[in-house]
């Protein structure tokens, strides 16, 4: 039987406290990985490896944290993501909440899509498909 959302969250909290050296109470659903929890680029890969082990899942490159979509010049206009780019991001990240980002899709705001909740959603989708 698939674990409940609370159980998934609890495991992810352990993963993030180990990977980022933060306290349990800092890992709340809305916390952003970079802004609130201080994750650096290499930490994202560390988190991926730890999630794979914790949940016995395989996370292909770029699936949880898409990192190359905005390398396409068609998807960025100045400091903003184009409507086409936004659609690409939404398609690539069904696990992310775009409700705020979509209003003002600045490239610099993209890290705010990567929250604890984003990871919980992703793992739930992966476990449901397993």
């Amino acid at each position, binding site marked *: 039987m698939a674990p409940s959302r609370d159980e998934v969250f609890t495991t992810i909290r352990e993963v993030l406290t*180990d990977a980022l050296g933060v306290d349990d109470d800092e890992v709340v659903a809305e916390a952003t990985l970079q802004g609130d929890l201080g994750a650096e680029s*290499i930490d994202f*890969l560390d988190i991926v*490896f730890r999630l794979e082990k914790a949940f016995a899942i395989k996370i292909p*490159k770029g699936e949880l944290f898409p990192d190359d979509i905005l390398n396409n010049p068609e998807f960025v206009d100045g400091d903003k993501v184009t409507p086409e780019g936004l659609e690409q991001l939404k398609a690539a990240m069904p696990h992310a909440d775009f409700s705020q980002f979509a209003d003002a899709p600045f490239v610099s705001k993209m890290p705010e899509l990567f929250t604890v909740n984003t990871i919980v959603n992703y793992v739930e989708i992966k476990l449901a498909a397993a």
Partner: protein
Amino acid sequence: MRWIWIDAFVEFVSKQRASAVKNVTLAEDYLHDHFPGYPVMPPTLMIEGMAQTAGILVGEARGFAENVILAKIRSAAFSDYAGPGDQLRYDATVDSLDERAAVTSGTVFKNGSQIGNVDLMFSHVNQAEKTLDLPDHNFVFTQQFMNLLAGFRRLDADGSGITHGG
């Protein structure tokens, strides 16, 4: 510059695990400053010894095609000092390995007794990634490091060199 913090491999199972030893000696300059009258090997250098053991293990697994960069010390904890006359052994095990990176877990022993754990993460950096402004050659696995493995092959009792675990 010599920056070799392991003396010899004593076990090497490709893609799985490796053990290397390091004999700590007063011939090493740093021990006279760390600390005067109380020579102990800085734990940071034991982490480096584990990084070299595990890094060569990871590099060999992919044919030394990429530069293997120590990307993150996932955890490191020591319960005892090591000093002149002690022999350290670094046991490293590959936990995860793919085209992006590798994760290893490691145990440090002093004269046979466990004194620490060092878990590391390595990033694979291909020389072809010009955006990183890296040298064209493999700047991690220099001849000095490769000689360590060559020495292991020579010393291996049954002459088989590196073993390949199933």
